[in-house]
């Protein structure tokens, strides 16, 4: 139902094919958070995966000793900004799930500070997601989710849970914190799954 807005021309630019609809390219790194930034000490940090049969647990040293991937990717926030060609380092979810047996198909990511977001497991495997702890060659800043955040670049960035502390497997898809507060259950930027 688009129509022309009188007097608006926008900045002259070529449309970048890598930008999903409704997104604007930015060069800084905006922040979407619902509360204060939690301070998480790596000495106390741990990451867990909980399934129907038990719990897998890594502390910071164990975690950063796992195979580490370099990830170059575009990221897209629901608040209409995108960054292209960002570089991250982190542990692939494929690595984390290597020894995890589960029949459950849905994941709730839990964060320090109490936030949650839901993602189907098959959207996290096969090279699609990481737990990242470096951005642009530096330790990930608290404001952007440090010490570690989920990185699921093919979905809107709120799914890339900041300050992530663990994943809880679920039989059914359930809305997390952001989804209960108006964001889409799934969050594909290419089909603009922003809000429900």
């Amino acid at each position, binding site marked *: *139902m*688009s129509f022309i*807005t009188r*007097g*608006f021309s926008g*900045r002259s630019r070529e449309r970048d094919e890598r930008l999903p609809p409704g997104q604007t390219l930015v060069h800084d790194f905006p922040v979407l958070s619902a509360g*204060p930034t939690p301070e998480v000490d790596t000495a106390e940090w741990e990451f867990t995966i909980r399934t129907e049969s038990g719990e897998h647990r890594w502390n910071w040293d164990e975690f950063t000793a796992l195979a580490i991937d370099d990830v170059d990717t575009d990221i897209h926030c629901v608040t209409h900004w995108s960054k292209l060609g960002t570089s991250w380092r982190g542990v692939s979810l494929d690595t984390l799930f290597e020894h995890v047996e589960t029949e459950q198909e849905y994941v709730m990511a839990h964060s320090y500070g109490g936030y949650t977001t839901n993602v189907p497991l098959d959207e996290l495997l096969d090279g699609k997601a990481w737990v990242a702890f470096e951005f642009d060659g530096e330790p990930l800043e608290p404001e952007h989710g440090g010490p570690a955040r989920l990185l699921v670049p093919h979905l809107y960035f709120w799914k890339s849970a900041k300050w992530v502390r663990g994943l809880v497997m679920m039989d059914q898809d359930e809305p997390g914190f952001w989804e209960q*507060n*108006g964001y889409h259950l799934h969050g594909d930027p290419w089909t603009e799954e922003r*809000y429900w």
Partner: protein
Amino acid sequence: MSEATAQTTSPAAASAAAVPAVPRSGWHVATVASTRRETPNASRIELEVDGWPGNAAGQHLDVRLTAPDGYTATRSYSIASSGAGTRVTLAVDRLPDGEVSPYLVDDVRAGDMLEVHGPLGAFFVWAPDAAHAAAAVDARPVQLIAGGSGVVPLYAMAEAHGVAQDPTRFRLLYSVRSPDDVYFADELRRLAEASAPLQLDLVYTRRAPDGWRTPPARITREVLESAVIPAAERPRVFVCGSTGFVERVADWLVELGHDARSIRTERYGGT
């Protein structure tokens, strides 16, 4: 939820009852009803939104502008108004190199049509509490903290509080560059004098009014400590402004003993 509020007789509560706590969002055509200069750097824009379901105080919407070549730009704006009805008020600050805000502040005029998507956001909201209003018991006080245009959703909350004559204690700490940069200045003054009053504390960062107690300066932790409802009174705190402002203030609030879970934030971008 609407059944509970419908039992009360106050007109404000009745009109609030017409708006579900989280109205369903969608795309709407908006016609600009009026614009006016809010500050030297900002405009207030009143929209008539076809099919708008109403909104809670604190929610935002997305504005989409379309250029003649089909290019579109979308940005989020907080809503300064709340309740039922199809009139929606925005207040937009001009960013010098911005793409959308200079258009909204300087070029848009009555009769223009835009697209809006909303209302959005169900977390950064405040609603008068009908049960507490009736019994006037145990309502936690509310502390609002705004930087610049970040006052927009907080003004909506303060206004909803005033309209509902809600007995909850309400206090707003508002950081502005100069006395000319206060958004909703008359309205805030009136709310401060009303029977469900708002306690208003202004901090001037560049130029203070003549004879002001302190020289202009950015908010510090000390100012925050002295002009915010103390942590011991367990206020619910809403902070809104540029990302840098919100980060600083929220960190200090936690240091001052406020429970992180009681602090809700809206970050507008920038540093």
